[in-house]
């Protein structure tokens, strides 16, 4: 099982990467907790999570091939 995680904006600076392949995560809460353990600066940072380009507001089940994006508030324009 492979899940691809993309980091955007300031989260690239925090994690030192823009993409990470992970395996065996049941849901976004578990994935988020693991990432916050690995990169504690994430805890104090505001960000949204999208699964396959859809913003999620609550915990979301993850399946093989899912693309998860961690995105700080948008600042285009």
């Amino acid at each position, binding site marked *: 099982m492979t899940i691809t995680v993309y980091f955007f904006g300031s989260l690239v600076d925090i994690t030192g990467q823009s993409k990470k392949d992970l395996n065996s995560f049941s849901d976004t809460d578990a994935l988020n907790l693991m990432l916050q353990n690995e990169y504690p600066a994430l805890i104090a940072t505001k960000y949204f999570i999208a699964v396959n380009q859809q913003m999620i507001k609550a915990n979301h089940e993850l399946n093989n091939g899912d693309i998860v*994006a961690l995105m700080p508030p*948008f600042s*285009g*324009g």
Partner: protein
Amino acid sequence: MGEKKIKNIFVEGAISSQKIADSIQTHASKTNIGAHSIFLGQVRADEKDGKQVASIEYTCYLDMALEKMHEIRESIFAKYELTCMHVYHSLGNVLVGEICLFVFTSSKHRKMAIEACNELVEAIKFELPIWGKEIYQDQSIVWKENK
């Protein structure tokens, strides 16, 4: 259902005034248009702790941004009687004083064009996954936040 055509709105670097002029000129042949509304976003030399912004570097989540822009485009066309709508946003580095966003709506009459343009700009700023990193003259950085 018609085939979905996803337009790319992104351009590398600043949007040139020539591109804007050319875009206006292109519409001269569309004689049912009576009003254009144009919004231009320009990189501002903000100051912080005595330092000045030199440029903004833009990045985006391309697939999601284009998909979302498509949805915004459809909803604006459904809501307003527009003849056409064009959106360009910069990616990469844009220097202070240069244009980073170009929104262009055209309609028979001014009200539709102006209101659609305003709504588009707000949607672009708050709904598109784009991030701006302010780069100061001493190379320090601050991630931009939209207000």
